């Protein structure tokens, strides 16, 4: 990767506007009163539109000049060192910019319809814009520090949006859970960042040969060994990966992502499916030059395990959004797997295609939820294809793309991952895990689609749990399902087109996407299909998908599910496994019994220590001081005050006594003088006696 020495193009100089505009819109929305709904939506959508135009311009620029181009500026001085921040433009960033702004814009528009009845409409758009700006900041950051700052703002907005309906206890606790769990990963990222700064002396990614991702710094870090015998770059890579594990919901820090579905559905689509959770994958792609074989192997294994683990759990969930959430976790695992075994292009290709079809799935789910008046349990739906044809068609397209149905977008990207996993020399384990995951994905998506869109309409019975609704109660009456307004269905249709056709930019015959990211000229080569094993692999994965679809149909489509209370088809056959999966493999419970119990014990111990020991010392000292105070005040009152008062009284009495001598009667004075004269004379006579 070479640097561009020519004067920077205007799009590069003004690249900062892409994140700055939505953040500005968020700031303005924050100042607007609640009633300015139209203005806040206009500001947010307008800023996203301008950002999208700029992002497309940046993509065009990056296609013309695929080299990394950077703009840096000094930010802050520590001692003699300046911390520099900056932004960069390369194919990876350009692709992400377009994806985030495009999907973001569609979701913003969709939110107009979805949030139309919410009282806090302006607040919603404020948070959404802030999120989009911060995410775009993550994408263009040329410094791990700047990336980290934006990363944290993204985490904050995620917290705010998950807890958007904070009056629901589930939403409030899900928001806290998301924030705290991702903090665990971010601690690793922070440590990795500090270590990287200590090793490389800079946090800029690219800086004309002096950046921390460039040849000299990476070579130096690879040569250093830590005390454990591990290369320093491996250790730093793993620490940074822990941040990505937290943000991207990899095992074992995936627990927050399904709970995050408590937020409004557009938020789930934008943040917890398309963009924010992809930030972890993007981070790993960004620091890819730093990662060595050991780190990549860890990433590949974690990704593969996550892919299967989450897909298993998704099979037994009943909440429409929760199934999609576990599916997202699973697909993020695929991205990490692709990154670990096949490099940046493979992982990011799946990230991009996934962003489109998963946001489409979430928006479709939102449309279903909206149409069924806030019903989220798939057992209470059914037969909706008759009422919501557009939602059904787009949902089905996205579902087939997610399953990897041949020629749909997910097919090409998932196939690239499986192909590279198959060719991965250290082990074939991730390949088999990925293949099982693909089968499970097709199975649970088929199950969901049959539950939601096929069969008879299953109206919830009176005994069913009341659905907690953020809306006023009068909107909760069961009405006939209806199609959503066009402000919601048009974004669905646009996304559906991409979900179907986007895969063709990265087929083996015409790997435009891959060659764009690796800055090599693309070529059209039909003979790439003829490479040994490739066709067989594609047929294998297609067979897996078909198998999953057929299993799904066999269990759920063959005989229509009549009543909402009917046990699940799998539950009838293997109840223990189904219940374990339905309880999410007890990961939350394991955390509850280990980490949380330990934390509770430690906090109880600390509280005891604080109250008894430290509090005791403090109380002892305070009692001592109080006693001394009593003693002092006693001395003051009885000795000092008493003595003084007594002296004053005596002095007053003496004064009165003496004052009574001077009674103003002149003759008294004369008498005294006469008496004194007599005494004097007597004394004189007495003295002269002899």
């Amino acid at each position, binding site marked *: 990767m070479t640097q561009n020495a020519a004067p920077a193009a205007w799009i590069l100089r003004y690249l900062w506007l892409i994140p700055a505009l939505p953040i500005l819109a968020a700031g303005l929305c924050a100042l607007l009163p609640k009633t300015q709904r139209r203005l806040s939506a206009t500001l947010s959508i307008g800023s996203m539109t301008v950002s999208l135009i700029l992002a497309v311009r940046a993509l065009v620029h990056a296609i013309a000049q695929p080299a990394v181009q950077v703009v840096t500026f000094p930010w802050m001085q520590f001692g003699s060192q300046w911390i520099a921040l900056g932004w960069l433009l390369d194919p990876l960033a350009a692709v992400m910019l377009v994806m985030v702004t495009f999907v973001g814009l569609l979701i913003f528009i969709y939110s107009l319809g979805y949030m139309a009845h919410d009282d806090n409409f302006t607040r919603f758009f404020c948070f959404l814009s802030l999120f989009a700006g911060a995410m775009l900041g993550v994408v263009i950051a040329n410094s791990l520090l700047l990336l980290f700052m934006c990363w944290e703002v993204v985490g904050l907005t995620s917290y705010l949006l998950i807890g958007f309906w904070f009056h629901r206890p589930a939403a409030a606790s899900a928001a806290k859970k998301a924030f705290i769990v991702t903090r665990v990963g971010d601690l690793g990222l922070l440590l990795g960042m500090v270590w990287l700064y200590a090793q490389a002396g800079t946090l800029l990614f690219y800086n004309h040969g002096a950046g921390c991702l460039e040849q000299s710094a990476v070579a130096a870090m690879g040569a250093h060994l830590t005390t454990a015998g591990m290369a320093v770059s491996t250790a730093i890579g793993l620490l940074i990966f822990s941040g990505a594990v937290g943000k991207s919901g990899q095992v074992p820090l995936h627990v927050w992502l399904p709970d995050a579905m408590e937020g409004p559905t557009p938020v789930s689509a934008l943040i917890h499916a398309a963009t924010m959770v992809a930030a972890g994958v993007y981070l790993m792609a960004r620091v890819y030059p730093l990662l060595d074989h050991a780190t990549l192997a860890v990433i590949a294994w974690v990704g593969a395990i996550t892919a299967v683990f989450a897909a298993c759990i998704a099979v037994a969930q009943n909440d429409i959004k929760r199934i999609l959430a576990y599916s997202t976790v699973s697909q993020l695992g695929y991205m990490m797997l692709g990154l670990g075994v096949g490099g940046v292009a493979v992982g990011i290709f799946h990230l991009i295609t996934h962003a489109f079809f998963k946001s489409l799935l979430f928006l479709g789910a939102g449309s279903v939820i909206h149409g069924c008046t806030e019903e989220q349990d798939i057992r209470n739906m059914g037969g909706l294809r008759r009422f919501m044809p557009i939602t059904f068609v787009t949902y089905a397209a996205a579902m087939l793309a997610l399953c990897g149905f041949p020629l749909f977008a997910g097919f090409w990207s998932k196939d690239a991952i499986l192909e590279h996993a198959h060719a991965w020399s250290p082990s074939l384990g991730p390949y088999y895990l990925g293949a099982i995951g693909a089968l499970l994905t097709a199975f649970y998506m088929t199950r969901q689609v049959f539950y939601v869109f096929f069969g008879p309409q299953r109206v919830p019975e009176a005994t069913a749990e009341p659905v907690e609704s953020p809306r006023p109660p009068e909107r909760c009456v069961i009405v006939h399902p209806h199609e959503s307004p066009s402000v919601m269905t048009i974004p669905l249709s646009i996304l559906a087109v991409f979900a179907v056709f986007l895969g063709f930019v990265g087929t083996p015959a015409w790997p435009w996407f891959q060659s764009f990211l690796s800055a090599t000229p693309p070529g059209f080569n039909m003979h790439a299909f003829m490479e040994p094993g490739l066709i067989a692999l594609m047929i294998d994965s297609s067979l897996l998908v078909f198998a999953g679809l057929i299993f799904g149909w066999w269990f759920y489509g063959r005989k229509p599910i009549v009543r909402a209370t009917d046990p699940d088809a799998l539950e009838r056959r293997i109840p223990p496994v189904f219940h374990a999966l339905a309880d999410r493999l007890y990961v939350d419970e394991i955390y509850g019994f280990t980490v949380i119990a330990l934390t509770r014990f430690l906090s109880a111990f600390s509280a005891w220590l604080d109250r008894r020991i430290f509090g005791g010392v403090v109380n002892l000292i305070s009692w001592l001081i109080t006693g001394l105070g009593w003693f002092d005040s006693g001395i003051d009152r009885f000795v000092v005050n008493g003595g003084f008062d007594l002296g004053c009284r005596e002095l007053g009495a003496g004064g009165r006594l*003496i004052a009574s001598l001077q009674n*103003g*009667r*002149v003759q008294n004075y004369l008498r005294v003088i006469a008496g004194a004269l007599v005494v004097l004379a007597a004394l004189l006579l007495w003295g002269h006696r002899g």
Partner: protein
Amino acid sequence: MNPLAICLLVSALLFAVGLAGALTRRSAILVLAGIELMLNAANLNFIAFWRFGPHPEALTGIVFVIFAIAVAAAEAAVGLALILAIYRHARTSDVSEITEMKG
């Protein structure tokens, strides 16, 4: 009894009478008269000690007494003026009732 002793006795009597008058009288004017008597007793002593002393040729005693009488006259004038002022102020010349200066 020599003449000096007689003079001193008279003077002492005169002083005693003046003192008694000054101490017992309530009228400020009579108190003043008593004081004058005591003053004259002292003058008498001056004259007696000068006349029967070792140097009767020097006129020290008589000069002293003339000065004393002159001062006493001035003093009496001032005293009477004070009494008059007090009377005007307090409408009485009874010294036992004039206790403005008590502490």
